[in-house]
């Protein structure tokens, strides 16, 4: 099966600019996650979708971050405006369903550098 696809692979922007990341999950996976991985830290969940509905966005900085999953398939994560501390790898993952029996499949990530 094809894996989780993410683009772009790398992005460099200046602070206060906006940026968007795209994710296409594995076909048939109802649950989609966006994680932020800052250098030297483990991934932190930003938002979780079940189909096209938001299940958990408690750690999403909603004043600057937004995400959508129209039609319950692919998803975009946007940052506007970016800050220096947003420099990180943004990982998208998907699973068949949200329970513990369904493993997360991760994409290769988008590495964002904010200068």
């Amino acid at each position, binding site marked *: 099966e094809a894996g989780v696809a993410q683009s772009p692979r790398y992005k460099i922007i200046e602070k206060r600019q906006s940026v968007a990341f795209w994710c296409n999950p594995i076909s048939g996976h109802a649950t989609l996650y966006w994680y932020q991985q800052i250098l030297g830290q*483990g991934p932190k969940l930003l938002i979780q979708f079940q189909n096209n509905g938001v299940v958990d966005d408690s750690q999403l900085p909603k004043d600057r971050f937004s995400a959508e999953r129209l039609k319950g398939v692919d998803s975009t994560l946007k940052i506007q405006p970016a800050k220096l501390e947003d420099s990180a790898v943004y990982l998208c993952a998907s699973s068949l369903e949200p329970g513990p029996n369904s493993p997360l499949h991760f994409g290769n*990530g988008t590495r964002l550098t904010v200068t």
Partner: protein
Amino acid sequence: AQSVTQLDSQVPVFEEAPVELRCNYSSSVSVYLFWYVQYPNQGLQLLLKYLSGSTLVKGINGFEAEFNKSQTSFHLRKPSVHISDTAEYFCAVKEAVGGGTSYGKLTFGQGTILTVHP
């Protein structure tokens, strides 16, 4: 809320030596436990998981982990490592609450970089 602590940020080891990567967690409820591996410039990949039953779980690539409830630990072990095991390893915990579409979130530790030297 749950938390995960990986006790070593870096572990260097020689090829064919045994290795143990340590993980402790904190939670007020029952948990599910996972180990993920991240090779350079790749996404995370599931190594193994503990959901219930036998406390010794085996995963891919010859890795195993033991759940110790009294010590709230889930250490990862391999009896003989290869150069190809060089990667970053993440321990993760998910609280055993909810159901349907509502489960506890998966919380990751800060990672342990395993470097296998020839």
